[in-house]
């Protein structure tokens, strides 16, 4: 059974085409991202195996990549993945409070998903927006200079 959709395969093919033919594996990061998007934000072992076969590389080499980068999820995530930076600049600018507020408002701890599957809360390292610390990323959006108030507005605006 084919798990990767035709659309996903076509997109992966575009990435494969960027590299010399004997280096198909170079497309592994893109392929994992595409598969993750297709699968509602997370990767199953079966999907990774299919990528391995598609890129002609050993499955373990795909697992290595998928486990190395924190943006690949290997457990189901909520509709909105909230990634809060707790690295040094954000910490100095109050990321502790951001985390505390989110945990309190969502009723979950870092690394957990709300029961209604709307939110997943994740702690991440520096996302390169230190100038406007503290910050978080939700989906593809950055939200900066966070305060409890702005957090509430942001959360209210999410489905």
């Amino acid at each position: 059974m084919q798990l990767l959709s035709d659309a996903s395969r076509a997109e992966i093919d575009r990435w494969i085409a960027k590299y010399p033919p004997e280096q198909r594996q170079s497309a592994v990061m893109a392929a994992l991202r595409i598969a993750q998007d297709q699968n509602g934000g997370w990767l199953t072992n079966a999907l990774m195996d299919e990528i391995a076969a598609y890129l002609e590389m050993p499955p373990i080499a795909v697992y290595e990549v998928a486990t190395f980068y924190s943006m690949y999820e290997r457990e189901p995530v909520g509709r909105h993945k909230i990634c809060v930076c707790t690295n040094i600049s954000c910490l100095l600018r109050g990321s502790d409070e951001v985390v505390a507020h989110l945990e309190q408002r969502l009723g979950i701890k870092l690394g957990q998903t709300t029961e209604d599957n709307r939110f997943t809360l994740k702690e991440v390292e520096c996302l390169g927006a230190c100038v406007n610390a503290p910050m978080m990323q939700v989906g593809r959006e950055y939200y900066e200079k966070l305060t409890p108030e702005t957090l509430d507005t942001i959360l209210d605006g999410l489905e």
Partner: protein
Amino acid sequence: MVNIEINGIPVQAADGSMLIEAADQAGIAIPRFCYHKKLSIAANCRMCLVEVEKMGKPMPACATPVNEGMKVFTKSPKAISAQRAVMEFLLINHPLDCPICDQGGECDLQEMALGYGNGTSQYGEAKRVVADQPIGPLIATEMTRCIHCTRCVRFGQEIAGVMELGATGRGEHMRIGTYVAKSVSSELSGNVIDLCPVGALTSRPYRYSARPWELDSHDSVSPHDCLGANIQVQSRRGELQRVLPRDNEALNECWLSDRDRFAYLGLAASDRLSAPRIKRDGEWQTVDWDTALTFAAEGIKAAGNSVGALAGYSSTTEEYYLLQKLVRGLGSNNIDFRLRQLDFSDQARLPAMPGLSLPVVEIESIDAALLIGANVRKEQPLLGLRLRKAALNGAAIHSVAAVDYAANLPMGQRIVTAPEAMVASLVAVAKALLVEGGSAPEGFAALAEKVEVSIEAEMIAASLKGAEKGIVWVGAMAAGSPDAAALRSLAALIADLSGCQLQLPGEGGNSAGAALAGCLPHRAAAGSEVDAAGLDWRAMLGAGLKALVLMNCEPELDCADSRTARTGLEQAGFVVALSGYASQAMVERCDVLLPMAMSYETSGTLVNAQGNWQGFGAAIAAPGDARPAWKLLRVLGNLLDLDGFEQFSSEEIRDELKALTGATGTIANQLRWQPVAPSVRVEGLSGIAEFAIHGVDPVVRRAAALQASIDGQGASVVRVHSTTAAARGFNDGQKVMLRTGEWSCAPMPLVVDDTVPAGCVLLRKGTEATQGCSSGFGPVELIPA
């Protein structure tokens, strides 16, 4: 060459080499964990930090190339403090469990910690713990001990060619494993046990049985494939504990196949024979040696010259020599060791001894190869490794076989056909070669007439022809096929036409020794011709001989046709077995069971595929009353009043043979084309059979851990292509019986496997499950069980 200075000592080093190599050559010790001379450089452990003049920071010796005039200090305060700091970090997460760790006493970390560690640790926080995942019956894991040197990962990727272990996660969360629960399947997996510098990966069978300082080490040679890997057999108080590789760059380098490493487990099998037994008036009795040998001699004597002998593949050359001497002394030429073969029609033309035409190391530098019915990776795992190196260097490795063997190297053209079509595939290659010139030899045209030259055949032909150093390799499946003579003849023709060298490595551990010793019906010692050829093993078993001597073989398992072996033994008058084991089948079919010393228990010589005579002494004593087979044969010879049985040592026997073979001890000759008959078409399902990697001799067969491995488990099934399974309504895992003519095997699970060509059934021989089957070739039927 560049000149550098290490600790004030001038050292010459090759351009581009690393500091650590230069130091190693000069005998200057630099601590290390991740560096290994056979693996790529990872430079991740940092234990090898040294001070280099004019460099601000300490440099990793394993990743710092030498430079003219470099001054290096490995023991300066700066170097030592860097090394001590690294050691402190390494020990932060390492458990303090040396007393219960199997690596204790031979652990690099333990040793380095002695030299560079602190008595106490500044680290007071919690240590990291890693949950273990089992990775099979051969390797025990204790991943909390892992220091992430990635040697095991690099071994799989770079050497074995199957990446099964990996480093998942990162930083503190990085761990080594398979990520998903699975056993490792590589036939070389055990090498990671030696590579792992700590006790993370240890030998599962050897676990908790001894400490290295209690072990006595004996140099020996492994008898399970024709490489003759050099090994150390280690025992404690006379009891065998484990087998390790012994470095020999010309043969096994520092590696060992799992079969060579773990076969010893079979020596302690529960059906090991330790006292002589005879069957008198239908009753088995355990008797003393005198009684047993006299009984055996009388039985043999009564048979006159209606006598024959079968020998297994893993005996010593000395044993083969005495066995043939015994049979010939009795006036018979009925002697054979080629139990895995079915076609002997070309025996008179074959080289007097199987082997390679080039040294093993030179396989690395070939630029093209045609493998014919060869699964080198599983037949001679370490020769497979050399082929892999050649392939990675750009050699084109092609295959014509009845199975699409899972290769661990980049393959060129692969022709996968039904077994009976292999002849036609080779004819196609030869035909393509003839297009480029040369004249068709006599008898070829008739064969080639109906054969179409495929694109693949053309490409193989072009590649072989264009090769500077090409080889044509006849593998075990080809040699064991009913068309073996035709396949060999065509292989010789292809080699001739393309200017490649023909390789007949020979199946089994000591087929070269057996052939040299004259353990053949048509040739006596040193390849000398006999007046009238005796019977090959198959004919012998069909001839109802009055007496049969078996040496180190279980015919129903070791012969290429288990069914013939069984009926033959039943018909034979008096059966004497020099055997390591008393299996049910042996007890039922023999009249005398003489316990013999097996590998590592006797002295002797093995001749490998490159013609080296490798001698060894006994490493351990044989159990109970078991005696070396050469001694048993010697006494039998005396009891039978035969001449030439006065030797007092295996060396004397060896020297006697050596005097016949001449100083080099090998016989060079070549196989040439001979007209062959086209193979018979098979209607319906066509059977393919080959010996299982762990079914090759009585010892390996009894090594429980090997049998439990993926290769071992995979041998007790029949395999068919998915389309064939679908067409016949079989499901994966369903129990079926394989039937040839009137005979069927016991029910076995069917495995759907697309490496088997459609319309074929693949069977692995030499295992309990397939005992009782016929040769496995030709028309077969599958019936649901």
